[in-house]
């Protein structure tokens, strides 16, 4: 069985959905962040798969992947800072406690 583009895309889709479900279901803020990482990495897999199998995107896919990794690191730093502040205020990392923005 040849591993082709489709398989990568399926893997990416599975990872994406996993991350999405993780974001939607976890009450722990850290867990939500993890879900975000999963979604980003699913995107990365798609970028790389397209870079590998489509010559048009050979360079662009990799560069975008690098961008996404860097961005994810920055996002994680900021998000963790928010979480720490959140913890200082609420003595909890439960995102359901953060409902002050409710309409």
């Amino acid at each position: 069985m040849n591993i082709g583009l489709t398989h990568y895309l399926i893997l990416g889709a599975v990872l994406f959905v996993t991350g999405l479900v993780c974001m939607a279901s976890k009450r722990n803020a850290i867990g939500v962040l993890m879900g975000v990482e999963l979604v980003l990495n699913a995107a990365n897999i798609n970028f790389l798969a397209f870079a590998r199998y489509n010559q048009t995107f050979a360079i662009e896919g990799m560069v975008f992947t690098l961008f996404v990794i860097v961005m994810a690191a920055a996002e994680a730093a900021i998000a963790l800072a928010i979480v720490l502040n959140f913890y200082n205020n609420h003595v909890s990392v439960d995102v359901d406690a953060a409902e002050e923005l409710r309409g």
Partner: protein
Amino acid sequence: MSNPGFLYVIATLLPLASFLLLFAGGKRWPGRVGGLIAVGGIGGAFVCSLIGFLLFLGAMPKHGHHDDHAKGAAVQATTPAAGSGTQPTATKPAEPGKEEAAATKPAEAAHGHGHAHAHADDHDHDSFAWKGSLSWVALTGFGSDDGGLDIRLGYYIDSLGAIMFLMVTFIASLIHIFALGYMSEELQPTVEDHQAHVTRKGRFPRFFMWFSLFCFSMLNLVLADNLFQVFVSWELVGVCSFGLIGFYYERQSATNAANKAFITNRVGDAGFIIGLLILWTQCGTLTFHTTTETVTTRSGRQVEKVKQLGIFDALRAPEHDTHKDPIKEHGQFVRVRHITEDDDHLLQMNPAGDHVVIWDKATLNGHFHGPDEKGRFEAYLSDRDGGHGHGMKTMPYWMLVLAGVGIFLGCVGKSAQFPLQVWLPDAMEGPTPVSALVHSATMVAAGVYLVGRVYPLFAPEVLLTIAYVGAITAFIAATIAIVQTDIKKVLAYSTVSQLGFMMLGLGVGGWVYGLFHLLTHAFFKALLFLGSGSVIHGCHHEQEMTKMGGLHAKMRTTSLTMLVGVLAICGTPLFSGWYSKDGIIVAALSFASLNPEHMALFLLPLIGAGITAFYMFRLWFVTFTPRDEHVYEHAHESPRVMTVPLIILAVCSVVVAWGPRPWDVQGSALEHFVHHSQPESLKVDTGINLNTAVLQAEPDSARAENVIANTFARDSWLHPLTVKLGWGPHDLAGLLALVVAGLGVLLSFAVYYWRVFDPQETRERFPWAYDLFQNKWHFDALYSALLVRPTLVVGYWCKAFDQKVIDGLIHGLAHLTVLVSRFDGKVDNGLVDGLVNLTGRVVFGVGDWLKGAQTGLIRNYVLFMAVAAVGIFAVVSYVLAMAG
């Protein structure tokens, strides 16, 4: 200023200044200050007029008209040689005298401009005057040439203007002084008006304010050098008379009289405006006299050009054409017919032509010939079509007549002539000094003065109209005066009658005598009115002569001065009225002798003169001689401020017309002075002009133009009188006038002094005549039936129409509007507001509903995002799939 005319401008403006002063602060000044200001204004004007008059006498050319003409002939003789080389001189018959004159002026003949100077001098001597003007309203863009339509403010002082100024300011000054005494009741803080039964404030300054404006208006009218300025003053005079006649405006009769005077004058002024519009449209100018300027042409010659065309020169033929050939018809209206010959449009001279040539600026400054041997006019005008003849402007003859009649109608209204005479007697409602001013120096004088001033505009038909109107007025007013018992009304009707005499004199060609009588009449009529004012003042405002009698003993000064006035108005020899009235009667007889079909023009005024003598003596007898009944007990002589003007006026009424030999009825110095302004056209006018007869009678006499003939003309039916007795009009008319006046006086003596007849019995014997005269020939009833009542009926109809139809319509519209508004309000409240509110409510509901989606839970948001992403994906996929 190149001439002393500015003195007259100052004299005009002084009363205006006192008017403005009184208008601004009259009420604040105590006592007689207001009156003194007015007296100062008019007195200053009198001083200016007097200085101006003396300067005028000094500046006036000394030689007579005869010399002028000799000189004129000499000037004309130099013309062919001096004027232009192109015109052949041989075509004209050379007279020995003219050749000689030409030979005596070789220097002028050699120089091209010699003629222009000589001509200018000649022209000045013909009508010596001080002139000046400034542009007032310039209507640029209307005329083809610059300044063509230009309304100007100016002064024109000839001997008529100078003497009018002197007369008006002198008499007005005396009346002002008299009024200081007469109006003294108004000085009290409160005055009780016994006729209107009200108590009101004193109005001393107000009276003098109107007086000053009145004098200003009249002086400006005399000063004016154009018809428009005259018209402005004319209306101002009307307004002032309205204010003064209605001075006691608490009295219904006074306000009615003021309205009557004003409205009657409007009728005349409508005619005046029509006349002005015709002249303005046809001639493009309203200025009286032409001004010229000397222009240097391109070839270096100096040519005299018309700068501002005068209205008389626009209608009367000029002295010579542009080739300096004399025009035979100089000074006449040139009546023409339009004819076409060889495709040329020509003007054929014809005494019955339906058009009159207008000598406009373009023609006079252009190139035109006098009539050729066939009597045809040609003009070559560069700025017109350059063709033959039809470059010359014409106007329909009937329009000229209409303009003349229109302007005369204005004078009829102002001077209270038939059929507009009804206002003047009612105007007696004003204070007596007002009556004196209105009747002598201002209002009514304005009409006669204007007829004299614009005399050259009147076609023969108009002059005949003027003569008949004057004769009828003189007679009718005299008959009415017989039965009046109000002392002022007798004088009012005598004024109307005397004004009729003046108009008659003007109409039959006695220009000088009409205006001469205006001047002398002003003096004795002012005297009579002030005398009656003194009587009324002395009798505590009693005006009915029937309640007076025997006043001579109590008011000696008033009585004697009034006797002088009565004698003057009757035409007693050596009194001023004698000279002027005699002239008018003579003029009428001369005219009637040439035109027997117009004999009424002589008979009516002759009878009128007799009646005048009768009723004036009646007035004096009834007022001053003792009677058995009704003697007024409390009468007293008036204060000095009132009697002194009376004495001055009485002296003037006697001596004002005297000449070097007072017993010579033709030798009046005043008459000769007025004569200097006599219009040129009077001497040459054909048709019904009196002086034509004079010229025929005495072709060689130097006095032919100055004085009425002493013989009857050869073609007159009265010529045998001259042949057999050596009598002229003067002898016959003078004798008749004296006899008739003497009869009138005798009758008056018989009835009111010797009591031979009982007036009551006479009245009962001729009830129809008494009825006719007492009801003023039923003019008031006639106008009431013909004009006033129909107007009122129309007015009531209009009122009913207004109240029923127009008001109903407006009320209906209002109701409709309210209904529509009510419906509109409902729509607005229900529909429009409902829609707007519904929108709001829907938006609110949707917002409220969507609010639930914003939970604040991140997990929900993620879920929404995922679902939305899937949804969008599905939709996009579907759309793309459908699109193929």
